[in-house]
């Protein structure tokens, strides 16, 4: 199989966009093309464009967004498709870019994920996100992602002894990381005392979906992220040495959350990670830095276990020991994660890859993980019913 790498990365400031969806995608794309050293114009050499977006239709009433992006960037006659896999759309698009190049049909693919969410109210955004649940058995009940995360958290607390304080530690850690990431949505570290210990904590940090509180849940953000994928045999064409995509794994689980045999397991995460490790020829111990889909703080803990970084039920102990912060044994969500960097759905999977590339290149500034050689990203679609794990490796 032809080897595939990442030659360029781009990322808008997550938060509130001043520009349209397509213009926002274009900003991230141009940064990635520049980073790769690709000159825009007639001889651009981009063969394929993938756009990851979950809400272009529902939120922005726009279709064929990938074609629109090709147009504003004038990348014709590049092929173009929009890809949707819920909140894992971004990693799915990167996977498709990988396949496009590995198949030999393309040499260079531009993958851009983005979501313009703040054009609707928070209630509408919550409803929009819930459209990924089962239409009859879940969505029609008013069930939402926070609702399932809350019910999952309760089981996790009862079974493994995770506490609300553990969750708050994850939140504070990720907000601390985000202070070193200029593109993060939230640039402010909450005080652990204020959000969990103080008598006013229930006011400052009220419950959203018991036992999850506001600070356990990612904000609603606009944003876009982009990567330029290339065949490794063409690495010389680009400005920087490409970071290699060493492994990709993906798996689906039951759509209906209530049906999961062991409700505290995230089988799709486990299987996706196993497949990615197998493809990369690596083990969890080889991973130096990880971006894990912390749409809710509990998910960072649960995913870190299912991905093999810690034994099942012990992820929160690693958080308590500080192992998952920058400087710890295996730093998680150095970018700030979804929690603090923000979670523009279609952008997130691509944004995770952007962060890993910056870490493996040594470009991560104040949040740099020293000597990082292998990075893992886990992008979580549905309530864990379609999960993509990606492993990047620094080429020596």
């Amino acid at each position: 199989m032809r080897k595939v790498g990442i030659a360029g990365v781009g990322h808008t400031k997550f938060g509130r966009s001043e520009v349209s969806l397509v213009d926002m995608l274009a900003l991230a794309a141009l940064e990635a093309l520049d980073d790769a050293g690709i000159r825009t114009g007639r001889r651009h050499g981009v063969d394929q464009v993938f756009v990851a977006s979950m809400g272009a239709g529902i939120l922005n009433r726009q279709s064929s967004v990938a074609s629109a992006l090709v147009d504003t960037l004038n990348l014709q006659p590049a092929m173009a498709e929009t890809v949707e896999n819920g909140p894992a759309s971004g990693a799915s698009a990167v996977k498709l870019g990988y396949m496009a190049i590995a198949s030999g049909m393309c040499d260079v693919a531009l993958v851009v994920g983005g979501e313009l969410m703040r054009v609707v109210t928070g209630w509408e955004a919550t409803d929009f996100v819930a459209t990924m649940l089962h239409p009859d058995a879940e969505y029609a009940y008013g069930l939402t992602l926070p609702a399932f995360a809350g019910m999952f958290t309760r089981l996790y607390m009862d079974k493994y002894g995770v506490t609300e304080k553990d969750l708050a530690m994850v939140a504070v850690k990720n907000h601390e990381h985000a202070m070193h990431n200029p593109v993060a949505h939230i640039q402010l570290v909450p005080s652990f005392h204020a959000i969990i210990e103080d008598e006013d904590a229930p006011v400052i940090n009220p419950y959203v979906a018991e036992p999850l509180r506001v600070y356990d849940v990612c904000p609603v953000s606009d944003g876009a992220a982009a990567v330029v994928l290339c065949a490794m045999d063409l690495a010389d064409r680009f400005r920087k040495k490409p970071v290699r995509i060493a492994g990709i794994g993906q798996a689906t689980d039951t759509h209906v959350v209530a049906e999961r045999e062991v409700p505290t397991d995230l089988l799709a995460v486990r299987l996706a990670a196993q497949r990615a490790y197998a493809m990369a020829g690596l083990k969890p111990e080889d991973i130096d830095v990880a971006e894990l889909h912390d749409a809710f703080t509990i998910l960072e803990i649960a995913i870190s276990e299912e991905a093999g970084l810690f034994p099942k039920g012990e992820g929160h102990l690693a958080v308590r020991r500080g192992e998952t912060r920058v400087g710890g044994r295996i730093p998680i969500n150095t970018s700030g994660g979804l929690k603090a960097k923000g979670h523009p759905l279609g952008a997130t999977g691509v944004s995770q890859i952007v962060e890993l590339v910056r870490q493996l290149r040594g470009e991560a500034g104040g949040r740099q993980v020293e000597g990082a050689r292998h990075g893992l990203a886990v992008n979580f679609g549905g309530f864990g019913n379609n999960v993509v794990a990606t492993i990047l490796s620094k080429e020596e």
Partner: protein
Amino acid sequence: MEPGMYAYRCTACGKLFHPARAVCRECGGREFEAVPLEGEGTLLTYTRVYALPEGYMKPWLGFGIVEFPNGVRVSGQMNTEDLAVGMKVRATVGTVKEGVGRDYYGFIFEKAAQA
């Protein structure tokens, strides 16, 4: 008319599903018979949600996952404030969402009467 709620039993291997599926996960069968889901069940987990999606005129709503004696697990709304993991609940069917031009029916669980 409020429709009943059902599980679907694979006629080939007997495995039960809710909601309906086109194919049995166990044996690949494609024929199912409807089995009423009613009576008492056990609450496996629950939450109270304060940020409801569009279309709900309430400050909060309780949700839970319930296991019926036949092993089928379902999600539903909780019509009681007094919730605990492991408690017995009774399934009722009611309007879970008021839609434009149509309402949506589903499980609304109540605290079971003491035995």
